[in-house]
């Protein structure tokens, strides 16, 4: 019986359930560090007065600058200091740092520090940053706030648009959002008194990468820094880039010779961690008479904040939009300009889905609007346009392996019974009051990509591969050391299932070691829906090697042919017979009776493997049912259906958990969550009373169905799915809100669809005034 495919309980859970997890804030025994942050969005630093360290102290120690680089001619290169130097560029930017015996004392000390900053005009929103006379965020390095500008077009685009039967134009806007892990960031650094080696515990997603960059900045050998990600209380991309604070902690600990800890508070996290998703898409799409999308032209602008993130850079959002915008559809002609615009706001990092929630929102609103214009049903227009020949090569050269775009949609819409819904909707429209609406979203999720995909981005640092080291000890237990860095996903459990199948053992006999640079092979960590594919693939390959070693040893012991040995249920047996030996006995022999090993065999049982695939595409269809009150603008979720195809499912329970959690974030992105600045760059959403993650009251049960198209692009047949829930849900919800109010002529293309925005859209549709600001779709949407 196979372990892969079974919903076994997670090995991670008992510790966490007993409150015995070890998060950074639980380590203790350290002096408390507090950062003093800029109170203004833009300004010149006149001086820092008080008991604090500043950039001058780092400079005196020769600490370097962060350089997050893309090797592209249109990319502005910057050197970012670990604390602000001369100039502050966003509210919350770290300017100075104090160290106190306790957190309370550090806060008291911080209050004694005075920042002398001369405020300057700030460019806050996209429009302000793009204005001809906009204040510049990096005036010494760039004459505009455009920091990266990608452009491409297929030949014949203009002609195809001219020849189109119908042109649909629309503008899509996404508010700024925060990943909001429930555990904010934090780190703890201690330096050995003798030997001078430093250990950094930090709440992060990529410990090996963090070790490299901090050692580069501090000019120290990597062997002298151990980086550990202990239990991490959620991350969702926010803990992927290097935190300046973590590098400062290592410097402080080495300079002071003492243990220091920084535990970010929630206000800091909302103000000065990382944001994402503030984007505007202007689409111009040409459809033929049969409602086929023939040509797609887009102008994308992403507000990328004041600094790039390392190593992903601030190209990640605009350039992902450029590369992946055609999504699951097949326009023959595609043209795009996509720019990253700097502003005096918090920097951006990837957040679950990165640009794809907005890409998908744009495409799926486009499909619904085009369907209405062409008099075609929303299901039918997708049926005519979704990929169905595989592999499909996109206009930007991405290879989509086999998926089930149409099948997933057909299954989802038949499950929800669209006919019955429409009857209910007609009755509700006749009755007035709150209105039901239904929205469909089909999308692809690019996952599990290695070095080739990252190399195509021309990054200064190219992530990609994953390595694992596997050994079986004399007791027959397996230790698997991985470069990936799981933080709540359940990867340890899923990998143990892969190992168990290959070695014929039980998952409970597998121990996974992760997230500690002293104990694991170099790897890139957990992000981009990659760990199951990458670390899972490497695990599969290493386990096959170890199985071969066990097989040849068993053949020697049992005097049989190695090809005839079957590993199952803890035993190695000769196929078709009852002749066999316990795997634990083989493990003993491999270590303690090596004279019995086959000639030339290496003592012990161990195997390493690396894996670095080109990538694969998952796909899914989401259907959201909402109820919208046109009088209050309130939206409540009534139903949510997901049909997901992520290839082979290793542990369906864990996969469903990823989907449900992702959908919850996507619903919140669609309706609730928004980081708000005033026009001077003061941030208005610095507590969970202002920034609104959902509670159980806002999230319905998620009905999930799976299709399993085994990927030919991965060794396990699995595809990633960690981000899909968040990618698809916003579009499904926005389409549902629009469907609910379609009879009123409402069109709402901005998320989050807060009650204010819904009301404004209702008023605008009724011919009222003052709604033009928020109902962007009423504006012309020219594309340059």
């Amino acid at each position, binding site marked *: 019986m196979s372990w892969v495919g079974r919903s076994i309980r997670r090995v991670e859970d008992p510790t966490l359930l007993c409150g015995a*997890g070890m998060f950074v804030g639980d380590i203790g025994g350290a002096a408390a560090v507090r950062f003093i942050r800029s109170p203004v969005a833009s300004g010149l630093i006149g001086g820092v007065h008080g008991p604090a360290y500043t950039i001058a102290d780092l400079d005196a120690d020769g600490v370097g600058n962060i350089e997050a680089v893309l090797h592209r001619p249109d990319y502005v290169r910057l050197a970012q200091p670990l604390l602000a130097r001369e100039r502050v560029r966003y509210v919350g930017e770290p300017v100075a740092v104090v160290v106190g015996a306790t957190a309370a004392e550090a806060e008291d000390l911080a209050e004694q520090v005075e920042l002398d900053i001369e405020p300057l005009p700030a460019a806050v929103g996209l429009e302000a940053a793009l204005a001809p006379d906009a204040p510049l965020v990096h005036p010494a390095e760039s004459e505009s706030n455009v920091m990266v500008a990608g452009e491409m077009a297929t030949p014949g685009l203009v002609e195809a648009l001219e020849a189109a039967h119908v042109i649909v134009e629309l503008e899509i806007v996404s508010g700024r959002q925060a990943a909001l892990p*429930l555990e904010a960031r934090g780190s703890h650094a201690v330096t050995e008194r003798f030997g001078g080696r430093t250990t950094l515990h930090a709440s992060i997603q990529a410990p090996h990468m963090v070790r490299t960059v901090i050692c580069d900045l501090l000019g120290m050998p990597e062997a002298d820094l151990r980086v550990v990600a202990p*239990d991490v209380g959620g991350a969702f991309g926010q803990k992927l880039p290097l935190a300046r604070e973590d590098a400062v902690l290592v410097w402080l600990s080495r300079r002071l010779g003492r243990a220091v800890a920084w535990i970010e508070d*929630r206000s800091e996290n909302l103000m000065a961690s990382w944001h994402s998703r503030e984007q505007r898409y202007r689409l111009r799409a040409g459809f033929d008479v049969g409602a086929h999308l023939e040509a797609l032209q887009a102008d994308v602008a992403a507000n990328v904040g004041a600094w790039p993130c390392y190593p992903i850079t601030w190209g990640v959002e605009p350039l992902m939009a450029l590369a992946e915008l055609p999504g699951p559809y097949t326009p023959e002609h595609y043209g795009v300009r996509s720019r990253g615009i700097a502003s005096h706001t918090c920097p951006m990092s990837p957040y679950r889905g990165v640009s794809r929630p907005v890409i998908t929102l744009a495409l799926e609103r486009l499909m619904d609007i085009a369907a209405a214009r062409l008099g075609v049903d929303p299901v039918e227009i997708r049926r005519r346009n979704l990929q169905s020949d595989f592999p499909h090569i996109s206009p930007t050269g991405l290879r989509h392996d086999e998926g089930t775009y149409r099948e997933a949609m057909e299954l989802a819409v038949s499950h929800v019974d669209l006919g019955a819904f429409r009857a209910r909707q007609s009755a509700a429209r006749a009755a007035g009051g709150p209105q039901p609406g239904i929205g469909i979203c089909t999308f692809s999720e690019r996952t599990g990509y290695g070095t080739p995909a990252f190399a195509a981005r021309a990054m200064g640092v190219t992530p990609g591969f994953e390595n694992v080291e596997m050994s079986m000890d004399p007791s027959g237990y397996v230790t698997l050391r991985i470069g990936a860095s799981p933080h709540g996903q359940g990867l340890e459990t899923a990998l143990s299932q892969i190992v168990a199948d290959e070695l014929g053992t039980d998952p409970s006999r597998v121990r996974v070691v992760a997230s500690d640079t002293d104990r694991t092979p170099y790897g890139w960590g957990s992000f981009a829906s990659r760990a199951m594919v990458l670390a899972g693939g490497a695990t599969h390959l290493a386990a096959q090697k170890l199985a071969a070693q066990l097989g040849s040893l068993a053949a020697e012991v049992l005097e049989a042919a190695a090809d005839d040995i079957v590993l199952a249920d803890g035993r190695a047996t000769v196929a078709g017979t009852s002749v066999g030996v316990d795997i634990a006995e083989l493990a003993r022999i491999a270590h303690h009776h090596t004279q019995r090993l086959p000639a030339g065999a290496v003592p012990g049982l161990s195997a390493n493997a690396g894996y670095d695939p080109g990538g694969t595409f998952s796909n899914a269809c989401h259907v959201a049912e909402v109820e919208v009150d046109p009088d209050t603008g309130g939206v409540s979720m009534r139903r949510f259906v997901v049909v997901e195809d992520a290839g082979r499912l290793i542990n369906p329970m*864990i996969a469903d958990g990823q989907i449900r959690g992702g959908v*919850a974030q996507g619903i919140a992105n669609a309706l609730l969550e928004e980081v708000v600045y005033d026009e001077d760059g003061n941030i208005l959403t610095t507590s969970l009373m202002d920034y609104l993650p959902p509670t159980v009251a806002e999230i319905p049960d998620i009905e999930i169905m799976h299709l399993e198209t085994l990927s030919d692009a991965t060794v396990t047949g699995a595809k990633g799915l960690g981000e899909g829930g968040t990618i698809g849900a916003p579009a499904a919800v926005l389409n549902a809100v629009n469907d609910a109010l379609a009879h009123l002529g409402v069109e709402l293309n901005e998320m989050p669809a807060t009650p204010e925005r819904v009301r404004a859209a209702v008023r605008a549709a009724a011919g009222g005034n003052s709604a033009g600001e928020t109902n962007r779709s009423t504006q012309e949407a020219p594309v340059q």
Partner: protein
Amino acid sequence: MTEISAADVAVPVVLRVNGNEYRISAEPRRTLADALRDDCGLTGTHLGCEHGVCGACTVLLDGEPVRSCLLFAVQAQSAEIRTVEGLAAADGTLHPLQEAFWRHHGLQCGFCTPGFLMLSAGVLETRPDIGDEELREALSSNLCRCTGYQTIVEAVQSVRDAGEA
């Protein structure tokens, strides 16, 4: 130097947590959450916002779920406090709620889990027959960023239905 106020001078505080007595010295401004974590060494109680919104720091005070980030340690002196560390039996047998969260996949990163467990324990002990809608209402006190909540609700419902809490 900052002026020293009475709130900054540590006073002796006695806390009864999970049946054990902790004699600590704490400034009157010290929150119960900080005292539990830093002075009693009970780090299972987590801090997610320190504004009383997320509920990760929920503990039971005389059986009532409370936000330990919004209470001062000195306010909890005469109370029986229960934290996640006291849920499992002394021999390590998991509490039915812990078992149910495990079985239903009611946790991922585990950071909110102690708060949800204590909230659920408080709710089910006082209202063992709580209806589905009221249970959802009660569980909306706390935030989880990983699970989407459905499996947490199912876990608590299963314990309620079995009458185990």
